[in-house]
């Protein structure tokens, strides 16, 4: 009898696992270097090269060097991991050639980690054993916290020195048993890579006696299943930036080599696809995704299951599935990171989607500005095709589906689905009126389903770990997690994946480490040029599609820019309008002309020519553009203006008042520098002024010639006596 789909898959996965283990087994030490556009920009390629040279020069055959995708800890890149079996993995930050040399000679050759360079040095794993208690909603704080406390007490009572065992809280591993809610919690033990199920204090005693005491795994408590975030937490769980996240879409980013199908297979890639094909019931897949309450991660927030139902129900034999990877929002880079870190998850999600709607052909629509992502998808598609996971008769199931890459060419509007379709058809990327929706008449007039990169990356996890698990990770209306690109004036910039419903405060302060330079948070901008600003007062808002919209912003694709007191919201609105106006395709009048006129008003205001009546005019125009534009770009373009007008109106008013001022001291035309009585006449400002408009005798109070001042602010910055006043 012919082997079943699942048997074929298991055989392939087992062979892949063996190959990976054979390669790893030969190595005493593994060095992994982050490799993504951002990592490379920070110098990762040089670091990789330096390690390669060192390995060759020392003639070591037991040191393996590999690449991984990006973990999303941008401000610390390049990141290098040194992995020794049986020992805690050590990650290094901001590695350059010199650090690489030290790491190689001290750690790789002599076994002594170079502590000062470890990622977030103060907390990196120096313990012999680390226990991570699941702190996610399903396991429940009511259950986890008492158990964790009891565990800590019992450890103390047993006389275990605190430097030997660390107890921490992490987020969901994806092992929640829908029936076991509130009755058991999970614990991951590093570096032993074991996950336990705990339900009573007796279980804790067993672990302390056997695992901590004798280094023996307590088999009866061990979870046999693979956890969704296990691979990730094993590597990065000691870093608080990561520990407070829940990695579902990004589960393999920074864990696998994005160009190795074998490594992906070891992390259960394509198992969900195999299950789906084995079961042979597309309607059941759609029902599962619907039940998971997965909503479109590109920003629309439309229920993915519903969209799939519509595409499946549409008449026609030929249907298409498209992955929208035209990530154009300034300040957003999660899709790029996902495609560069784990293209296999996205491919698998697309194939499952294709099967669910009855498509046999799919397209990746990717920005041409992302050459590395394009290369990695290409490579992944080749590997999948060669392994029988793509193309004809996938895994012997009889299901055919092939995927192709289509490049964008730098047009933001192509993220809009009808514009995207026109672009794939080889035309100008201009949108058209909907309905008909693409699920009815899309690419070449055929039913077409378009989902975002992150949406697809979540699909395999839903199939593997269940719709209930996914739904419960999030809020009532939105299941699962969301990846945010955290940037701006925050300590730790990078990719943050958290359950829907997490508050802004947790993201910005607990994970992002708060504001840089001890400044005050002013606003958080979400959703890019289509989004808006939230005030410091809104920090405790649980973030999901609906709550953000209710506050006049949007989730969007997940850009999150933190602003401090030095940022002017009027200037920010002007910035976003410049972007929207530039990217307006010109097809409909409200967007083409409206964004232009709004921009003119904003330029007038920030340029010191604003009039009080401008605010009302701006607001009226913004509402008009919002209601009458053809597509999402125009309809959302006024959002940055409307939301800042709503929450920061006084700042706009200050800009247009008789005495025009910019409260954030950002709009140069509104600034005025004056030298006050604190001046001691040191002449420093006069010497540094680029237009030599400051005059005065030595030891005498100086004066700025306002007519010639260009308001560059150099005098303000260099003065050591606070004698230059700014307003």
């Amino acid at each position, binding site marked *: 009898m012919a082997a079943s789909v699942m048997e074929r898959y298991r055989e392939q996965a087992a062979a892949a696992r063996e190959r990976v283990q054979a390669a790893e087994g030969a190595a005493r030490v593994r060095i992994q270097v982050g490799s993504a556009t951002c990592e490379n920009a*920070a110098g990762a390629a040089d670091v990789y090269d330096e390690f390669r040279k060192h390995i060759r020069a020392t003639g070591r055959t037991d040191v393996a060097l590999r690449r991984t995708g990006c973990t999303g800890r941008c401000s610390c890149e390049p990141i290098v991991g040194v992995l020794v079996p049986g020992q805690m993995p050590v990650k290094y930050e901001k590695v350059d050639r010199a650090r690489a040399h030290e790491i190689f000679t001290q750690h790789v050759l002599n076994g002594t980690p170079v502590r000062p360079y470890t990622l977030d040095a103060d907390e990196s794993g120096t313990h012999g054993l680390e226990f991570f208690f699941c702190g996610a909603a399903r396991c429940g704080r009511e259950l986890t916290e008492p158990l964790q406390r009891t565990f800590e007490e019992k450890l103390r009572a047993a006389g275990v020195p605190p430097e030997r065992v660390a107890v921490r809280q992490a987020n969901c591993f994806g092992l929640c048993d829908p029936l076991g809610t509130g009755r058991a919690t999970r614990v991951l033990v590093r570096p032993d890579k074991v996950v336990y199920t705990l339900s009573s204090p007796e279980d804790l005693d067993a672990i302390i006696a056997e695992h901590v005491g004798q280094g023996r795994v307590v088999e009866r408590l061990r979870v046999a299943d693979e956890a969704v975030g296990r691979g990730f937490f094993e590597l990065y769980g000691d870093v608080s930036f990561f520990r407070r996240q829940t990695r579902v879409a990004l589960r393999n980013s920074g864990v696998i080599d994005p160009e190795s199908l074998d490594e992906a297979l070891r992390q259960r890639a394509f198992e969900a696809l195999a299950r789906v094909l084995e079961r042979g019931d597309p309607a059941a897949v759609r029902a599962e995704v619907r039940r998971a309450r997965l909503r479109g991660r590109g920003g629309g927030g439309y229920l993915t299951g519903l969209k799939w139902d519509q595409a499946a129900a549409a008449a026609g034999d030929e249907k298409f599935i498209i992955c929208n990877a035209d990530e154009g929002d300034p300040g957003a880079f999660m899709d790029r990171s996902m495609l560069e870190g784990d293209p296999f998850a996205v491919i698998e999600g697309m194939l499952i989607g294709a099967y669910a709607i009855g498509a046999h052909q799919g397209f990746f629509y990717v920005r041409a500005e992302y050459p590395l992502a394009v290369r990695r998808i290409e490579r992944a598609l080749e590997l999948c095709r060669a392994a029988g996971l793509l193309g004809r008769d996938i895994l012997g199931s009889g299901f055919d589906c092939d995927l192709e890459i289509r490049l964008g060419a730098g047009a933001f509007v192509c993220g809009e689905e009808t514009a995207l379709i026109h672009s794939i058809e080889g035309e100008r990327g201009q949108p058209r009126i909907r309905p008909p929706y693409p699920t009815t008449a899309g690419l070449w007039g055929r039913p077409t389903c378009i989902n975002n990169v992150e949406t697809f990356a979540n699909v395999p996890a839903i199939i593997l770990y269940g719709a209930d698990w996914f739904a419960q990770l999030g809020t009532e209306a939105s299941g699962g997690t969301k990846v945010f690109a955290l940037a701006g004036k925050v300590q730790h910039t990078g990719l943050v994946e958290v359950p829907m419903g997490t508050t802004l405060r947790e993201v910005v302060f607990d994970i992002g480490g708060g504001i840089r330079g001890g400044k005050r948070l002013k606003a958080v901008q979400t959703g890019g040029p289509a989004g808006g600003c939230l005030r410091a007062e809104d920090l405790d808002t649980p973030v999901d599609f609906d709550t953000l919209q209710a506050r006049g912003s949007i989730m969007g694709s997940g850009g999150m820019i933190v602003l401090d007191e030095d940022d002017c919201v009027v200037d920010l609105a002007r910035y976003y309008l410049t972007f929207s106006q530039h990217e307006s395709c010109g097809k409909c009048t409200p967007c083409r002309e409206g964004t232009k006129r709004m921009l003119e008003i904003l330029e007038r205001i920030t340029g010191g020519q604003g009039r009080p009546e401008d605010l009302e005019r701006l607001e009226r125009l913004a509402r008009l553009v919002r209601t009458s534009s053809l597509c999402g770009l125009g309809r959302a373009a006024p959002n940055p203006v409307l939301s800042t007008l709503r929450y920061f109106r006084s700042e706009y008013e200050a800009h247009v008042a008789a005495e025009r001022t910019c409260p954030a001291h950002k709009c140069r035309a509104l600034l005025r520098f004056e030298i006050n009585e604190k001046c001691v006449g040191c002449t420093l400002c006069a010497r540094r002024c680029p237009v030599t408009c400051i005059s005065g005798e030595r030891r005498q109070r100086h004066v700025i010639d306002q007519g010639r001042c260009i308001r560059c602010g150099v005098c303000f910055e260099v003065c050591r006596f606070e004698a230059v006043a700014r307003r």
Partner: protein
Amino acid sequence: MNPATTDNWAQVEAAAQAALTPEIVSFIAACRAKPHPESHLIAVLHRVQEHFGYLGQAQMDAVAQLLRVPAARVSGVATFYHYFRLQPRGRFMINVCMGTACYVKGADRVAARFREELGIDFGQTTTDGQFSLHDAACLGTCGLAPVVMINDKVYPRVTPDQVPGLLESLTAPAPA
């Protein structure tokens, strides 16, 4: 109408092929063999620009002939997408990222310094053909803001004062 049946097709085809490279000509032929050949127009233009550095009128006309799409459509597409250039570019293509993260970290001041040092505005090339200056929408490396991309290399955390040195290092003869 099928252009291959016109009486001067042989000359038109030869002229079009001469304006492109053999690789691009055979890529177009491969596209023609697939369903919806016209949908590969953007991919063809990417290849033309990769080879020639920009889309010249002769090349666009040649693509129109060989891919058999109207010249107006080729020029419509070429002018719609920001990625395509219709003018030759300088030896060094300087892209100053104006993404949100870069902007709030002072990309405008970095850009101003480039304009000042080079004496050109965005979208222009220096008269010696050395430098082209462009503003880029987000380059997706926000953690390193503000960033500047010169040809394929990304420079992280650029300050205005680094600009003159950066330009100098580009044109300095490579160490032997």
